């Protein structure tokens, strides 16, 4: 690491640029040679829905390594800053590292400039990071984040999804990604309505994750034995809030009871 007090003068408010100038070894991402990609843990399904006052985001708790379960209680939904959240699907190692870098990037910008980035700016920045991961993605270590936040200017929640090239698309209603993403989307498609409230948003997210776990072997459903439930967080004008475990447990139990009654 070089001394930021002496090193090259830097005019950028970006943390990635600061790393490049003063500690490039922390950014090093050397593509390995061709060959088999080692088996690493993968995170599976994450989803987000827009509701009247903001946006809600959720993820199941399973990480898989090939055909085995690597972790039962992994967290995939993180606060990016006070007014945005990021959820990850794909190779868990690089994904969690990307989240850490992204969180630092947003905080760094805010401290250097004295005010936070716009939601649009945050979404673009994350896209650049996904693009930076392309060499690893080509070798199978794909990281696909889902980003959402409260846009203070528009006074609405917004969702952004990405592809491996860093391409960025906005979803006005909901989106889900990861191995069970397709099933979760199918579930959300039937349940989402414009202007739903926060409680319903949490409810349909929990249900979508349940449906994804029902169809996709890599997605974990609510684990009533160990007390492990999907994580849901909301972002509104009041900021980021992870739902307390107790509420998540109740939501999952209600859903399981309802499904048991229906027999499906």
């Amino acid at each position: 690491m070089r001394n930021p007090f002496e090193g090259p003068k830097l005019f950028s408010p970006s943390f990635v640029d600061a790393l490049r100038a003063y500690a490039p070894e922390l950014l090093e991402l050397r593509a390995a040679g061709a060959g088999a990609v080692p088996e690493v843990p993968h995170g599976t399904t994450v989803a987000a829905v827009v509701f009247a006052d903001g946006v809600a985001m959720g993820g199941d708790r399973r990480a898989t390594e090939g055909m085995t379960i690597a972790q039962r209680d992994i967290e995939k939904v993180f606060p990016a800053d006070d007014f945005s959240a990021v959820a990850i699907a794909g190779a868990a190692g690089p994904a969690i590292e990307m989240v850490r870098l992204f969180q630092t990037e947003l905080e760094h910008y805010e401290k250097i400039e004295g005010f936070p980035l716009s939601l649009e700016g945050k979404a673009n920045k994350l896209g650049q990071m996904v693009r930076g991961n392309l060499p690893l993605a080509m070798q199978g270590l794909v990281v696909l984040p889902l980003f959402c936040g409260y846009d203070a200017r528009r006074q609405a929640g917004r969702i952004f999804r990405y592809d491996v090239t860093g391409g960025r698309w906005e979803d006005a209603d909901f989106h889900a990604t990861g191995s069970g993403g397709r099933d979760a989307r199918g579930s959300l498609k039937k349940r989402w309505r414009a202007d739903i409230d926060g409680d319903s948003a949490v409810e349909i997210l929990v249900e979508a994750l349940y449906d994804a776990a029902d169809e996709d072997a890599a997605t974990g459903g609510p684990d009533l034995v160990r007390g492990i439930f999907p994580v849901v967080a909301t972002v509104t004008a009041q900021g980021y809030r992870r739902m307390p475990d107790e509420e998540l447990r109740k939501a999952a139990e209600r859903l399981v009871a309802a499904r048991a009654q229906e027999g499906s």
Partner: protein
Amino acid sequence: MSVPFYVPPEQLTKEKAEFARKGIARGRPLVVLEYRGGILFVAENPSTHLHKVAELYDRIAFCAVGRFSEFENLRQAGVRLADIRGYAYGREDVTSRSIANAYSQTLGQIFVQEFKPYEVELCVAEVGAEGAPNAMYHVVFDGNVFDRKSFLAMGGQSDELNTALQRAYDEDMELDGALQLAVRVLREAAPAGEAGNSRLETAVLERDRPRRSFRRLTQEDVAARAGEPAS
């Protein structure tokens, strides 16, 4: 190349120090106060955008007086140092001591090597977590570091301010009391004609605030707490 005149180092150091001191004394003052729930920063600052007090890391803040371009440069380098450390290691591994040390090294080097020393004085303050004591490192233009307790005034009229604070400081003050004291001593020390009409930049490091404990207070907030009209 011309041969420079020989100037004895004693004289050079003395003149540089005098130059820096004069520059700093021309600026507006700033006070830092420990109160029960954290650390308070109050600076006379006519600008609403160019800050003298700023966040460095979770529990660490920076404040400075003197030439803006010089301390802003130092502030940004401090933020970079803190964020790179926190990213490379862990958040709790970023300490005010190591940041103050970096400031000391930098200012010391500039004072000795550069033609013109920096006309700045700064303080790196850290609010202790879970009952740990606070830290206040006062770094001056030549790189000297002083470990301060309770309160600190820097910039113009700093001697009068420190004396006034010494007289009235009470370690059991809450935020409102600390704010009232800071505002009062700053108003009293202001040169005639300026008293009472300069804008105050105010911020706190709050002990019980999780993670990022730095918070700015608005003009209205300060007015309500300190019991005087918003300027």
